[in-house]
């Protein structure tokens, strides 16, 4: 199969690359660009560990073709913050003990960000709805919910 030349904007940086037309964004992020913060598991849109932001919306990168992402803004966990400049969600996830094995956490944080960006003052029930596509097997979700509620409190006055 002929590879497609693609121009992808990821974390504010433009990448020119060749990708198989049928390759999902997840494959390109992890294999071609080394952005391994986006995780791989079920590959059929059930678990949410591969969640990234596409024009600000949380999407499963395992189901999205890389070719569909041209001209759109992609944000991965690597684009959210680093050790020096943590996003408030990253801070509250640490503070509230929301992280155990951590494998679901990049997707969880990005799903939470997408939701808080649209709904800055959510109820716990709304956060539960927003994160219901992201499986976590370690935490029972409770401290994740605490962290997202706390981040909403931090973020709201900044808007």
């Amino acid at each position, binding site marked *: 199969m002929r590879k497609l030349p693609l121009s992808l904007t990821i974390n504010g940086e433009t990448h020119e690359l060749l990708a198989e037309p049928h390759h999902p964004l997840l494959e390109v992020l992890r294999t071609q660009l080394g952005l391994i913060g*986006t995780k791989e598991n079920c590959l059929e849109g059930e678990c949410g560990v591969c969640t990234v932001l596409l024009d600000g919306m949380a999407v499963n990168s395992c189901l999205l073709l890389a070719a569909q992402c041209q001209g759109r803004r992609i944000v991965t966990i690597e684009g959210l913050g680093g050790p020096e400049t*943590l996003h408030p969600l*990253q801070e509250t996830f640490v503070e509230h*003990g929301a*992280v*155990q*094995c*951590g494998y*679901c956490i990049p997707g969880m944080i990005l799903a939470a960000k997408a939701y808080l960006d649209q709904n800055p003052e959510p109820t716990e029930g709304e956060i539960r709805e927003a994160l219901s596509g992201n499986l976590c097997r370690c935490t029972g979700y409770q*401290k994740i919910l605490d962290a997202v509620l706390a981040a909403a409190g931090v973020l709201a006055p900044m808007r």
Partner: protein
Amino acid sequence: MAPELRVVGKPLPRVDAYGKVTGKTVYAADFTLPGMLFGKVLRGTEPHARIVRIDARRALTLPGVRAVISAADVADVRYGGALKDETVFAREKVRYVGQPVAAVAAATSEAAEAALAAIDVVYDPLPAVFDVEGALAPGAPLVHEAWETYSAIPILYREGNICNRARILAGDVERGLAEADRVFEHRFTTRMVHQGYTEPRAAVAAWDSAGQVTVWSNTQLPFEVQNTLAEILQLPPSRIRILVPGIGGGFGGKLRVGVEHFAALLARKTGRPVRVITTSEEELTAAYPRQGTIVELKTGVTRDGRLTGKQGRIFFDTGAFAGSGPGVASVATLILAGPYCIPNLHLEGYAVYTNKTNCGSFRAPSGPQANFAVESQMDIIADALGMDPLDLRLRNIVREGDEGPTGQLLTGVGLEECLRRAADAIGWNDRRPGPSRGKGIACGWWTTTGGSSGVYVKINPDGTVALNTGAAEIGTGALTGAAQVLAEQLSVELSDINLVSADTYSTPFDFGAQGSRTAFSVGNACRAAAADLRRQLFALASRQLGVEPDALELRERHVVAGGKRVSLADLSRLSQQSGGGLIAHGTFIAPPTPYDTKRVEAHVYPAFHSPSFHAHAVDLAVDPETGEVTLHRYVVAQDVGFALNPTYVEGQIEGGVAQGVGQALSEEIVYENGRVVNPNLTDYKMPTTLDLPRIESILVQHPSAVGPYGAKGVGEPPNIEPPAAVANAVAAAIGVRITSLPITAEKIVMALRKETP
């Protein structure tokens, strides 16, 4: 007066949190090497069949395909735990749908997939056994005709499709049942469930020119995988190096060799690094899930609610290979006894071969299945006697100084407090607060598994501390807990500890992340290392400060004596100039727990070390039209001994309950005629954010005499009681008792309509 604690017991953030929230932590599934090939496994498609032919010629001609291997390419060895019955690839016949038959390595994952599809395997089907009853029926086909030739630890009792029968025999059960006013007989069933870790099992293997292989794996037990690979590859263990990067959850599913052997064999064949990672379908058809069970209980009780005797049998459907079955069947008998004083016991645990996937260990192996039966029956008995279920339990539970079922002396027993506090918190005086609404309670006990731990602890010239351990951090925060112990003991902060973990070449031995033991055992090894370092530090400081060593103490990163002080950093530099640096080797092995050897037969795990005790209470509603269960509140009171880090102890409880609620209400690997019909995460239903209430944790602290600061094992217990607590609450809500897991909406509606499935 004991000095005030600065680090242990505090809700500090875990040491690996920042790497995980920024996506920087490298997990085994993320690990790659230059030139790496992609390995995939061809899995059998028949539950039981003779392999007539494997033809890989066409696959080998496909673009990008570098190797195809099958049984003919590997040494003819059987490996396993208590019983060595497993092979890398099916040899002569397949015994379950999903058994590895061949493996390929190719330049891309897609090329490897294409190669699998191009391998022709011809099977000649054989009669199969799909459940315990079938496997134990007279004249049933044997899953392993040559079972007698397999090597096993000598104590196992084996016969045909039974790969162990463990027993506890105490008192005289006939007499105990004869003394009873009422005898209750019930049968319960549970289904196969998966650990559900979000990171698939993954391994990358590479051989060097000296004939040594390095494997990056997400195993919970690097030293066991090293030994198993040594058997499979026919090499001394020292030529096999296992490194554990980040692990995306394990829950017992990543204990045994999973894909490491395929990666190592394919890498040896191709001369290139090879990575193997499982798919969700492989996870749900060919991993190491929790065994389905049948439990039969016959329990005698006096009119006033005293348990006089119990006869019980639990049958584990362990699948086509023993896996953890022989041990799990043993542990189960201690759970069948319950945390109760019963003078007369005849309890049996059977591990039974069937033509299904090889079952393994899942958080508190045997706990949820056996506890579901025991604690459901306690409620049935209470109802029949007209007693409050809480009162019936309080009348029979073990208390300080009582004897366990095999005669062990029980100490640090916080069970009564757990039961009373859980009941109070849930509002037990109002058990049926509304129509179709009810509350349930269940209690239990569990072990803190032994096994040894070693650590090296080094004090760096900047005063920070390196903790080098062979234990793996699977997400529980156990190594943060151990690091807190070390920081406390050395008068440093948690942020001063640098963790190096799980490299079989260089880290000291550890029995591994299993059995709720890591914080307990590694924490104690840290205490031992810190004691050694104190001696070294005080010897150096004594000369520096001109003070006798016994006048010295550690405080705020310094050795101090009155107004004199010298920093750990200075002492480390001094040692580097004069004595090779400050380092200590700390070790720990839990002391044996004495028990009455005459009470057990073929028993792999006869006593619970530093046992923990717990009670769960739930308040739920059932929709009588749809059968749907909504959990309103969930309370856990767990005797944790001492909470080394309350945040992550709560995290263990919350996560354990979530998994347990999954097993209680929705999770099941569904087999039909030996084939899994729901091998995907759409149809294998794990709880989401919408399926769980807030879980209220009450940390009860009756210290263990052995654990660091009195801590007991924490990780597994919260997974034990949810099925029983939920079943009891459902019964309270609708007056109908469901005796099989999962308690699906369908079962509830059918029970309400008095229909049978």
